[in-house]
């Protein structure tokens, strides 16, 4: 009887080893995949609770949002702070006073596109087949994940990501920036300045002056920015992609910049021919 558990364990080890695959059977990864099956339900449930608990408030919300429906689409204007609204795909938005949100009839056909001004928070219902796109006068934000807030007027767009991932693309310079939870982006159209701040790192891209500032930025992001900024493909060895880099460049050419990074970090970044 003493040896019984040991025997079982060896048998167990043999069995596990036969089928073992790294990165499998990980509940955290599974949990991310299962979200799309359980997330929409959750939104619906929340809204039901919300309505039954506070019918009076709901009425108030309806009154405080003016909406216009025309043949081309729907426009919402918030007349008070913290106005909630549910889009046709069951994504939720919370609008601050004066915020405007528009979507047209094609919403949800090949993509879910809304245009906006003011300050709006989004909790986007997951649907990988239909990208959710927020367009502001200066930038386009493509949503790959869930919750974020956008503040936009004609000159500036600010984004802060609460959870999940979104892709922020300023109008000029056109660089698709992948932003994850905790990151904020501030873009000013006139000066073409993009500031990206996350915990422990930041960067600033200035399209007018052609200057770049990296502060503790991961190399994969540095390389992404460089390759779009200078419009050249750049190769970064995978094992070097999470090194971090701090420096600023003004009106340097891309060959110089790559040399400087390689010399500083002893890396092997290459500009592809």
């Amino acid at each position, binding site marked *: 009887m003493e040896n019984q558990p040991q025997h*079982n364990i060896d048998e167990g080890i043999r069995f596990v080893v036969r089928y073992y695959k790294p990165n499998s059977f990980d509940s955290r990864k599974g949990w991310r995949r299962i979200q799309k099956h359980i997330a929409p339900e959750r939104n619906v449930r929340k809204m039901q609770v919300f309505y039954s608990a506070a019918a009076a408030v709901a009425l108030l919300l309806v009154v405080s949002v003016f909406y216009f429906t025309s043949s081309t689409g729907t426009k919402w204007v918030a007349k008070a702070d913290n106005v909630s609204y549910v889009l046709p795909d069951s994504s939720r938005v919370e609008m601050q006073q004066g915020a405007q949100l528009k979507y047209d009839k094609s919403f949800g056909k090949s993509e879910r596109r809304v245009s906006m001004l003011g300050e709006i928070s989004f909790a986007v219902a997951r649907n990988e087949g239909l990208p959710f796109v927020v367009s502001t006068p200066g930038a386009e934000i493509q949503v790959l994940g869930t919750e974020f807030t956008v503040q936009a007027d004609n000159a500036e767009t600010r984004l802060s990501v609460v959870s999940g991932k979104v892709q922020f693309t300023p109008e000029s310079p056109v660089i698709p920036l992948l932003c994850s939870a905790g990151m904020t982006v501030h873009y000013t159209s006139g000066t073409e300045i993009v500031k990206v701040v996350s915990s422990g790192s930041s960067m600033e891209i200035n399209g007018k002056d052609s200057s770049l500032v990296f502060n503790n930025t991961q190399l994969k992001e540095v390389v992404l920015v460089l390759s779009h900024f200078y419009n050249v493909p750049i190769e970064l060895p995978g094992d070097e992609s999470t090194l971090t880099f701090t420096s600023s460049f003004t009106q340097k050419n891309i060959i110089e910049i790559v040399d400087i990074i390689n010399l500083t970090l002893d890396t092997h970044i290459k500009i592809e021919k």
Partner: protein
Amino acid sequence: MPTSKKQFSEYYHGYYRQLCLHALHFLCDADEAEDVVQDTFVNLWDKRDQLEKIKSVKAYLYTAVRNNCLTRIRDAKPTTSLDKWSGEELLTGDEQMERAEMEARVWKMIDELPERRREIFLMAKRDGMRYKDIAEQTGLTVKTVENHVLRAMQSLRAKDIKAYLFFFA
């Protein structure tokens, strides 16, 4: 009171890996096993209004995974089902759960081995390579390879005995 998302998440993270191993005994394929477990949890979520009537969610999940595996085997080609189905029912339900829990711990411990050691350990135990060939392929000495494998085995066994005693002693 339907099961909340938080409660559901606790079931999910608590039982996910062991259910995968339970399914692996039926399906003999890691991807398929994970697939079945994922489907089973989606079904559980759809039935969350009725869960309070279930005495043991864990036992329910084990049975559901088993049934879903059998359905999958039945719907697959008949030849595969004969190969794969090999007297699993010799163990009682409790024994199957204990075994899956133990194997889930082994799986996690392999995950946690240092990368180099894990690679060598898998070459030896999964791929059945001889120490000499592993040494040649990795540029290590036979002695070092042997050492890696033995120490990997030791850590799997040692840690597991502790866990085993903790749970069952």
